[in-house]
């Protein structure tokens, strides 16, 4: 009884004070994870403005943005997963898997394309769940688990397509129900100041904005950083580590589905072998954008900038009239440079 009174000495009050906001905004801006990528993006942009004449036109920028967006939507999911401390190598073929599934389910079962897309979404989420579940249950590194998924999906893509369609590409679905509305959502264009812009650019920005908000302004975001930074500590303070990580893999599945729908409704038929190797582009975009391979550090905006650098280099080489065979060399060199630069930035941030 008397003990209770003694305990009131320390009051556990939540303090709200408008004066205690973020300090040193400029300094903090300089050490943000995506700062290196931001400076790099401006440099590359100026570089191509100088060397490539066609790059200066507004329509070229629209093309660059389109190339960035298809990588960027997926890179957003991959970056969030990487912040959560995991890795997914199956993303490239997962995109193709989703569009093949939507196309063939609709075609063979005579469904509305929206119904096919819905079933494909369930499959994509199931693949993500399986990846996450296996990683958490077996404690085997996600690199190995998703490498297995990568090969299994690549095999399924080819084998099932050949089995059902009799060829390596799916049949045309452009005359089926739901095509027009789905195309509007996933693959239309609109005109701004006389320049035609693909809708995926808008979706890319929406994905990035939502991911940024979730990462920094919600409970879930706090948990994502925590499970990536130190899963054991996170568990000790009550963060549901397994659920968060499985959720992240499923979010990657959702992103793959979304890009897959874009491919289907932009190109009508889907090649079963495509997408292999794209997983590296997504990872490169995330890493250039400042995500740490070991988890717990990075931003969605960084991944978007990384994807933009990818799009600029991809198209800029063509506009500059160079041999596009060199593209991958430049990409590799840029990744190396970005990793070293990001590392230097981070060390500076830690020392300050």
């Amino acid at each position, binding site marked *: 009884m008397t003990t209770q009174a003694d305990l009131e000495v320390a009051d556990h009050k939540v*303090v709200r004070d408008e004066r205690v906001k973020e300090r040193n905004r400029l300094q903090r801006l300089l050490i943000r994870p995506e700062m290196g990528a931001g400076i790099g993006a401006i440099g590359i942009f100026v570089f191509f403005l100088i060397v490539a004449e066609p790059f200066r036109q507004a329509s070229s920028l629209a093309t660059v943005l389109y190339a960035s967006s298809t990588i960027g939507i997926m890179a957003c999911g991959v970056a969030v997963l990487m912040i959560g401390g995991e890795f997914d190598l199956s993303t490239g073929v997962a995109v193709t898997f989703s569009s093949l599934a939507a196309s063939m389910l609709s075609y063979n079962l005579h469904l509305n394309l929206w119904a096919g897309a819905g079933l494909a979404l369930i499959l994509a989420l199931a693949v993500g769940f399986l990846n996450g579940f296996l990683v958490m249950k077996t404690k085997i590194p996600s690199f190995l688990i998703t490498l297995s998924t990568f090969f299994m999906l690549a095999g399924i893509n080819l084998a099932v397509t050949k089995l059902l369609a009799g060829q390596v590409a799916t049949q045309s679905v452009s005359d089926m129900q739901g095509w027009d509305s789905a195309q509007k959502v996933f693959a239309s264009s609109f005109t701004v100041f006389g320049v035609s812009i693909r809708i995926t650019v808008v979706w890319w920005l929406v994905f990035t904005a939502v991911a940024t*908000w979730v990462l920094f302004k919600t409970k879930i975001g*706090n*948990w994502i950083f*925590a499970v990536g930074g130190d899963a054991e*500590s996170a568990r000790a303070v009550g963060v549901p580590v397994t659920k968060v990580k499985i959720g992240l893999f499923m979010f990657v599945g959702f992103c793959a589905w979304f890009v897959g729908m874009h491919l289907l409704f932009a190109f009508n038929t889907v090649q079963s072998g495509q997408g292999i190797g794209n997983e590296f582009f997504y990872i490169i975009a995330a890493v250039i954008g400042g995500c*740490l391979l070991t988890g717990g550090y990075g931003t969605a905006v960084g991944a978007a900038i990384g994807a933009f650098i990818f799009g600029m280099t991809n198209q800029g080489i063509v506009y500059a009239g160079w041999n596009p065979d060199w593209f991958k060399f430049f990409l590799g060199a840029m990744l190396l440079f970005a990793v070293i630069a990001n590392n230097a930035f981070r060390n500076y941030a830690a020392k300050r």
Partner: protein
Amino acid sequence: MTATMDRPTEEAPSGGKVPLVELKDVGKSYGNITALKGISLRVHAGEVTGILGDNGAGKSTLIKIIAGLHQQTDGELLVDGEPTKFTSPADALGKGIATVYQNLAVVPLMPVWRNFFLGQEIRKKSFPWSLDTNAMRATTLTELSKMGIDLPDVDVPIGSLSGGQRQCVAIARAVFFGARVLILDEPTAALGVKQSGVVLKYITAAKEAGFGVVFITHNPHHAHMVGDHFVLLNRGRQKLDCSYDDITLEHLTQQMAGGDELEALSHELGR
């Protein structure tokens, strides 16, 4: 039977106040191995109870019983005078007994304030219920300064703080989320002299704020600086149970170092 004989007079040192946590003749055996036997101690509000012992003395087993990780096989555990058996750490936490383990459970790359509120984030009351980051920053700052830690910026990653400061943040977190009894598992073991000082000051601040503190250490100097009450464990038995006034640092150190055995040894070596 033998244990009850040398048990000190009950509840005498605190003038009849009910201890927050009390152990009466507690023992723990794993199968036929006896890890602890006949442990009796009391943790009062506003007091530091130092538990000393060498490696393997049974310190960690004792904390695990108080923290709810294990259950005692003999004797009684009383919380606020009521006999209790904890079934889980959450159970102990619900009664206000918080344990700060050596690894601290912090995420090094995350800012101090995010670590402080990790798992118990504050959200705004209205749509879209985003995190109330300003409230969390200000609260972290206030709670830390209340205990004498002045951080210029709670946005720095907690990994960039010194070991002592990190320890203090972990303790402050336990305090803020409703702990009445703090169990500190060797908080100064991995720290230098200066950083240990920070933690010891903090322990004193927590004590003065009315918390009951259980301070586990194998350093008699640290224990003597902040402790009000000392319990010495040796090979699972309680060797000493006395208050600050009854013991000098020399005596405590000597007891800790092996006491009579050491004396005999030094005599034998003849130096």
